[in-house]
């Protein structure tokens, strides 16, 4: 039972991440490789605000989201001047730079030693320690985020993003500014990732920079590419597939030394196969360009 709950919690956290990224990748049509940065900054700011500034859980998380949002603004301003390969490269560059900083700014982040003993969230006087409580907490946040994103995606803003994705010049001709709209999408996506980071940090109670590497960014992008983007079902399919696949392999009885490599090979093969057969992912509506 605990095992199932743990899986559900992880799926919840990754759903928040992938729905956030969906706004940029699916609705904006931009392949971003720095989502793990926002996830990581959210985890670190949330944690440091709780440990060093002594803030309670909710204010720390929300302040973390604001800080991450500002950071997403700083990254987005230069990055969104590019499209295609260049955008991928610039976001990848920020991913590497932030990871280097998280890893080497030892005074603030304790670098490779990580931050242990992160306090559990306390909400309305109740300390969330049990797994089922955690599941409820993550589900609540997930429902709120999905509801907000659902509205955002149906709103004129979401439709304008889609228009920009499909034909930037035509949409611009209709008065939709790519600079502003993509930037809003990027910042919202960063803030949502930050929330997931805060939840992850307090759930695992230990963070170190290796959870927020380029590989993690690639993994998050792969979730969307496998599941599909541009609607609300794709990220769900992708997250469930990508999180449950390693667990399924565990039941096949693969030894622990080879399991991670086999898992990665399946991810790689899935990506190649999908590019041949369904470039929009299993349940997506947006075809990669």
């Amino acid at each position, binding site marked *: 039972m605990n095992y199932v709950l743990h899986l559900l919690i992880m799926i919840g956290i990754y759903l928040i991440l992938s729905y956030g990224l969906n706004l940029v990748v699916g609705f904006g049509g931009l*392949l971003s490789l720095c989502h793990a940065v926002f996830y990581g900054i959210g985890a670190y700011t949330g944690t440091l605000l709780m440990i060093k500034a002594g803030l309670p859980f909710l204010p720390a998380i929300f302040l973390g989201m604001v800080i991450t949002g500002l950071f997403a603004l700083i990254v987005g301003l230069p990055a969104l001047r590019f499209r295609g390969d260049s955008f991928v490269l610039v976001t990848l560059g920020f991913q590497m730079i932030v990871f280097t900083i998280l890893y080497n700014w030892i005074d603030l982040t304790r670098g490779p030693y990580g931050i242990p003993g992160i306090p559990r969230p306390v909400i309305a006087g109740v300390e969330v320690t049990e797994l089922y409580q955690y599941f409820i907490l993550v589900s609540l946040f997930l429902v709120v985020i999905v509801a907000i994103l659902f509205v955002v995606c149906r709103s004129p803003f979401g439709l304008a993003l889609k228009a920009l994705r499909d034909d930037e010049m035509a949409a611009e001709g209709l008065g939709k500014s790519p600079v502003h709209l993509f930037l809003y999408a990027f910042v919202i996506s960063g803030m949502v990732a930050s929330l997931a980071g805060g939840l992850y940090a307090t759930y695992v109670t230990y963070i170190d920079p290796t959870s927020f590497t380029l590989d993690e960014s690639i993994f998050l992008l792969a979730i969307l*590419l496998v599941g599909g983007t541009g609607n609300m079902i794709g990220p769900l399919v992708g997250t469930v597939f990508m999180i449950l696949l390693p667990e399924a392999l565990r039941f096949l009885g693969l030894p622990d030394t080879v399991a991670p490599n086999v898992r990665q090979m399946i991810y790689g093969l899935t990506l190649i196969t999908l590019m041949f057969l369904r470039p929009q992912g299993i349940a997506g509506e947006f075809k990669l360009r």
Partner: protein
Amino acid sequence: MILLSQLLLNALVNAAIFSLLAVGFGLIYRSMRFFYIAYGAVYVIASYAVVAAMQISGFPLYLSIGAGVFLGVLAGVLMDRTVYLPLERSGATPGVLLIASLGLYILAVNAVALIFGNEVKILSRGIEPSFSLGPLVITRMQVIQFLVGWILVTGFWLIIRKNTLMKGIWAMGETPNLVTALGLPCGLMRLLVFALSSVFAGVASLVTALDVGIDPHVGMHALLIGAVAVIVGGVDVYWGWIGGASLLALLQGMAVWQFSSRWNDLITFGILIITLLFRPQGLFSPRKRREER
């Protein structure tokens, strides 16, 4: 001052390796116009082929090196034939090629890790002999890296400078349709580009692996160095790639001098972002006319 000179010397050696990586990546990026992530996989496969040949089959070193480069080339060409070529024929977009390439990289590197393990494999035994140049020290392996790198890069330029086929390959990056219309051997050129790119990746990989060993996950790093060098230097100029690679090596050396090698990635990707922002055509590329862009 001695420290600075030593670091500059090391930077020259690194520049040779980075240049090899840049030329390998640049060849594909310039002529095919897609982002060849699986380049990192070729890099890894070449060195592991040497590991297999030397430590498992007991081949002598020189034969193993040949086997490594050959298998690297084979891997590069096979990836093209099985994935890129069919995808391009079906009219794939750059985004699709990028992701397929990423998938290939993940698949190949983890297959290597599955066979050989995730840990570092050491290829050379014992202590490397070193030479002193006054107060400076250079190891034998560094001399080899320096010579192999610079000779290959310069020699290649001398060969391709006046070569029609190479001019065709260059033209392929600008107007691929015209190349077919002119009756140039497109298939052969494609094969040649992938093979040559793999040779450069393989050689860079081997001279590095013989010095510090190899693990399956360094491929991404090698790819990124090559890609950043090409983009910083300028995609359209051969010596721009080399210039970009040398600049990276030099700045990384300076970073070691002033701070520590831990901050190398910050330098590499900082330069990348600054270049893309302020001089997107690359530092050593001539300014393009407006209608050419």
